[in-house]
């Protein structure tokens, strides 16, 4: 079994053809202590500024892949390469992570929740305040800065979670089914907000979802995964000119892509009983 490795940008740059890649997974597997094989071998390349969705049935290892990229868990074998350029601002962090749950600290206000990554990086209060204000404004949360998480709706909590991920000005935004627990109207609105953010800030986004419609609406590229263990199934490019909006959601083109992705998804759950 190959030695697992997480390499830095400096090393990955020396390899030919990897310029512009911010995330590169090669033959990555993950076997949990219980013996369950969750992932792989799995390959994935993501270019700078791309919006990529990982789509698959639940239990296909897409969340595992995301946690490996974030460094929250170690691969059993294979290599995970994430480019981490030197951050320009103090308290900057190259990766932002949004969980399926809002994952806020219930004991403190929205503002203090968003402050957390900066506080952990020892950013001075004055510097931090300006950036917190900016992140809150980006997510239309300015007026809710002093509210406590429990006073907010599910969609609002998710906005706070997003603002917290953005406050460090990350290059890569990893999102683990962030809108799965929300109602459809809130989800549509947050989809649009996320697209607008991506267009304006030019982040690289890796978005895990089990919704065909969400993946087609948001991404430039949909990676369909097969399940148990999760592998690279097919890849579908969504070649639609930006900006996308509500009219895209109701267009025939959108429906066509959704059909294509749905068909690609069939083999990944065809063999499974009762799922």
């Amino acid at each position, binding site marked *: 079994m190959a030695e697992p490795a997480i390499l830095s940008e400096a090393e990955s740059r020396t390899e030919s053809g990897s310029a512009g890649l911010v995330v590169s997974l090669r033959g990555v597997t993950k076997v949990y202590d219980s013996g369950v094989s969750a992932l792989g071998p799995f390959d994935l390349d993501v270019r700078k500024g791309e919006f990529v969705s990982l789509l698959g049935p639940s239990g296909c290892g897409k969340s595992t892949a995301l946690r490996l990229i974030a460094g929250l868990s170690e691969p059993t074998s294979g290599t995970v390469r994430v480019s981490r350029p030197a951050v320009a601002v103090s308290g900057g962090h190259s990766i932002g992570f949004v*969980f399926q749950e809002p*994952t806020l*600290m219930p004991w403190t206000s929205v503002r203090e929740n968003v402050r957390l990554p900066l*506080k*952990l990086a020892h950013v001075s209060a004055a510097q931090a305040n300006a950036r917190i204000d900016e992140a809150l404004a980006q997510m239309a949360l300015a007026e809710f800065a002093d509210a*406590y998480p*429990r*006073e907010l709706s599910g*969609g609002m909590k998710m*906005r706070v979670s997003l603002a917290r991920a953005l406050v460090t000005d990350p290059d890569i935004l990893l999102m683990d089914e962030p809108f799965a627990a929300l109602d459809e109207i809130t989800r549509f609105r947050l989809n649009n907000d996320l697209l607008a953010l991506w267009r304006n800030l030019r982040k690289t986004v890796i978005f895990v979802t089990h919704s065909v419609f969400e993946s087609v609406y948001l991404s430039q590229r949909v990676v369909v995964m097969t399940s148990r263990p999760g592998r690279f199934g097919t890849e579908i490019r969504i070649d639609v000119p930006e900006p996308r909006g509500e009219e895209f959601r109701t267009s025939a083109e959108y429906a066509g892509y959704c059909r294509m992705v749905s068909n690609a998804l069939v083999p990944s759950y065809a063999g499974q009983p009762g799922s």
Partner: protein
Amino acid sequence: MNSLRNSPLQASSLQAPALSAGSATPDSRALRLVRILLPFVVLAVGIVAWELVVRLNDIPPYVLPGPSAVFRTLVGDWGVLSQSLLTTLLTTLEGFVAAAVGGIGLALLFNQSKWLEYSLFPYAVILQVTPVIAIAPLLLIYLPQQTAVIVCAWIVGFFPVLSNTTLGLNSVDRNLAGLFRLYGASPLQTLCYLKLPAALPFILGGLRIAGGLSLIGAVVAEIAAGSAGAGSGLAYRIAESGYRLNIPRMFAALLLLSVAGIVIYGLLALTSHLVLRRWHESALGKEN
């Protein structure tokens, strides 16, 4: 609060505090009044019945004093009793602080090192399950009386703090812990910004139990010290009055102990409520 759902951008409606749910219908207000009043009615009926039984049967005060006799003793002996009350309260406070510091400190140590936890936790359990009334005489042999009393209060008080704090430190949200790791938090930062706040409701619950138990520990040690001791706590007064057949003073001292216990519990419950009221489910109105 439901109006907030799905309308994330309506800022103004948020300012209505969520705790105003208490001002409900007149019906429920009357119900609450009854709930508060009923125990007092029971108390009044009990006192009257007690007094009547004593008077109608002409029971002498050294067998059973009536409430009026107890009250007269309470006022008449206030000098002695208040001094004793102060002594017992001070002991309880010292035992409680020791239990809080010891319990939280041990839990933090256990959280840092699994080996330490495996080695020491069984002994914490043994200390807890051995009846303190049986340990107290031994402690009185080896320690000065005042110290022995405080150690007794500590022994009974620290375990609930230890086990509750341990539970709290272990129930930190997994994803939040991951987030702290992602942002490279130091162990100290994780402790101060994540583990301690997350454990706070549990710690406060432990302290609430420890407050009452510290009083019990102090009383047990005072009783064990008994006539041999030079102490002047309330429990000592009870024992002393028993020997002298001064039954009204026994009742008066007992009454003061009960009131002290209630006040300690009330203060800790209030502290817990004030600390948690903005965010924790336990401190929020049911309607929310």
